[in-house]
């Protein structure tokens, strides 16, 4: 027993490394046979899509020149987009007046900056004032009058028209939508029925039939001699249509307000309108900002439907330009450009709304 020597067993091999690039690749891409197969499948997909697209869009593409003849076959012809860029952005807006559109955008961007500053205290009041004043300024700049040359809406077009329809549609739909949402939650049966019918009716039909309504039915509904301009008719119908969607978003926010808030307001002796205006809506509207942004994104995409009634928004301008005999066979370039513009706008807005949602969520979790 005593002369037995103690010998160590040989060391076990070290465990496979769990840090570093190789370990990450092993863990995330090749952890099992099935996973390896999936990785190979994914690589195949990427290989199938990425190289041809990169070749077409960048390597073989033509960037400089001024006519169709400058473009080499086999690659994208971005010359087309470059040459028609003005039309895609402003439509038929007169060339020497386009600074007005630019100025409208610059004012909007500068005006919106305080809303994104955390240190700015009067956000709600400032935002409300902006919502009231800015549309008037924008209308004056875009349409004209009071010293500016009048540019009739038939000359508006391109991305500018898309933004105008979507922005006016949402801003106009907000008050109507809030009223409808209040009506839907009202205890008065007649008002509730009217609002529910309105909301469900407009939500049940496609936007395209609403635009048809604006072009064929609205002239019938209005008194004889009252002629509204095509764009205005479309915007009016878009506002009514979107109000139904906004109403549902706002109702969702109002339902999230705990009952205690109503009871507390009642205990303070507040009536219906003051309870709604001072207690419920300020909290509910804050909650539904992401929802409203999402509705705006949907409308921004759907505004392309005005093709149907012959307005020249971004998509329709591009569609028209691709059928120009001077630039044949460039539909792919045109639609890829349109997709890129829409994508940048929608992706930026949806990222913003997702961030906002995360930020707003924290205060309400228990």
């Amino acid at each position, binding site marked *: 027993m005593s002369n037995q020597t103690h010998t160590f067993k040989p060391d076990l091999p070290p465990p496979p490394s769990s840090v570093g690039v190789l370990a990450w690749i092993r863990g995330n891409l090749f952890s099992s046979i099935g996973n390896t197969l999936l990785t190979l499948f994914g690589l195949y997909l990427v290989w199938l899509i990425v190289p041809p697209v990169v070749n077409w869009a960048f390597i073989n593409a033509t960037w400089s020149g001024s006519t169709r003849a400058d473009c080499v076959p086999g690659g994208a012809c971005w010359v087309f987009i470059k040459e028609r860029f003005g039309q895609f952005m402003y439509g038929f807006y007169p060339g020497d007046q386009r600074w007005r559109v630019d100025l409208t955008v610059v004012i909007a961007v500068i005006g919106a900056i305080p809303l994104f500053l955390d240190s700015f205290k009067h956000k709600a009041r400032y935002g409300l004032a902006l919502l009231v004043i800015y549309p008037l300024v924008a209308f004056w700049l875009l349409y004209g009058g009071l010293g500016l040359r009048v540019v009739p809406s038939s000359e508006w077009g391109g991305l500018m028209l898309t933004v105008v329809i979507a922005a006016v549609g949402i801003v106009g739909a907000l008050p109507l939508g809030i009223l409808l949402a209040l009506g839907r939650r009202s205890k008065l049966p*007649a008002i509730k029925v009217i609002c529910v019918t309105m909301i469900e009716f407009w939500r049940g039909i496609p936007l395209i039939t609403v635009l048809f309504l604006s072009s064929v039915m609205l002239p019938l509904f209005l008194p004889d001699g009252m002629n509204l301009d095509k764009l205005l008719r479309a915007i009016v119908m878009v506002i009514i249509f979107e109000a139904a969607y906004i109403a549902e978003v706002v109702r969702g926010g109002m339902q999230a307000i705990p009952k205690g808030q109503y009871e507390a307001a009642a205990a303070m002796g507040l009536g219906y309108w003051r309870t709604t205006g001072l207690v419920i809506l300020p909290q509910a509207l804050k909650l539904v900002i992401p929802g409203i942004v999402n509705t705006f994104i949907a409308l921004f995409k759907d505004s392309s439907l005005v093709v149907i009634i012959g307005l020249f928004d971004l998509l329709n301008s591009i569609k028209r330009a691709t059928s120009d005999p001077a630039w044949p066979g460039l*539909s792919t370039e045109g*639609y890829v450009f349109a997709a890129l513009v829409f994508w940048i706008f929608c992706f930026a807005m949806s990222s913003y709304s997702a961030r906002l949602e995360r930020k707003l969520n924290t205060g309400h979790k228990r």
Partner: protein
Amino acid sequence: MQNVSKPSSPVRGSLLTDPQARSWLFQIVAVIAVVAFGWFLFTNTQANLANRGITSGFGFLNNTAGFGIPQHLIPYSEGDTYGRVFLVGLLNTLLVSVIGIFLATIIGFTVGVARLSNNWLLRKVATVYIETFRNIPPLLLIFFFYFAVLAPLPGPRQSLSLGEAFFVNNRGLYMPAPIADAGFLPGLIALLIAIVASVVVVRWARKRRHATGQRFPVLWTVLALLIGIPLLAALVFGRPLHWEVPELQGFNLRGGWVIIPELVSLALALSVYTAAFIGETVRGGIQAVSHGQTEAASSLGLRPGLTLRLVIIPQALRVIIPPLTNQYLNLMKNSSLGAAVGYPEMVALFAGTVLNQTGQAIETMAITMSVYLAISISISILMNWYNKRIALIER
């Protein structure tokens, strides 16, 4: 202390401040406003119609349409009535909706599950797919497929073919068509019998399992029934159908089924677009099942496959199905975008061509909108019923 009286309703000075009276007042004012607005529209419309010499009414539905339609599921010729045009349009809308829903569900579930995969690459590919297509207008996708993908395809003589059975060219997608043979009716009856028998077997097996706990090889039995009985019928009565493959004759392909390019681009665009949203819905639904459920299932000894089938999916479906139906409804409503490329659906045919020919704006728009309304409302009623049925029954 004993005589605590019930709080009497507060005494009000005037009728205007009485809550009861005020609620009546508000409602009456609202109803009057709505009726007055309706009356205003009605009288204007009447005056305008009289000025333009349009007689209202649905009599025009019996008039001859006199125009051709490139795709009709029911027999249609130029001599048919506007009423028939309506049916053709409705069926075309339903056709593209069903195809779109089918494809979107497959792509959407694949992408949604891929977004939750352990595989980093697959996850990223799925994310890129969703973020790309969610943020592009569906109309743009339709135009892209129609004008940039299908229009530049070669003509019928240089069709791209897949196994000499499917052909794609700038006139559409050609595929083999099944043609009924002598054994068709017996084959159909055999299939029906097989389906009924399978349902009976499944029910019996479930009842037996609940009663005795014994499992029965349901899957194999059902497969044997579904394949065996029709096969037997085919052996006895002859083959039920053969495939008619399209062939190049002269300048065009003859035979088989032709899917017009409008339908191809519309169905593709709608399914690619909606699939992105369905993918997000599916991911959200699966993530909504708490991780404790998976852990509980594996502590009970369920294998991963069974955990997925018996624990995760039933609970995830409860979250997924309501928004999924919403997406289906959106797809159905978006199918009206086919009007922009001339696919002959409800809006293009009825609110477009028929309205232009007859001038009956009110009637055609009313019919078109009520079709969409009817579908939306019936689906939401169905949804509410389903939601009640599957809602968690809590203690």
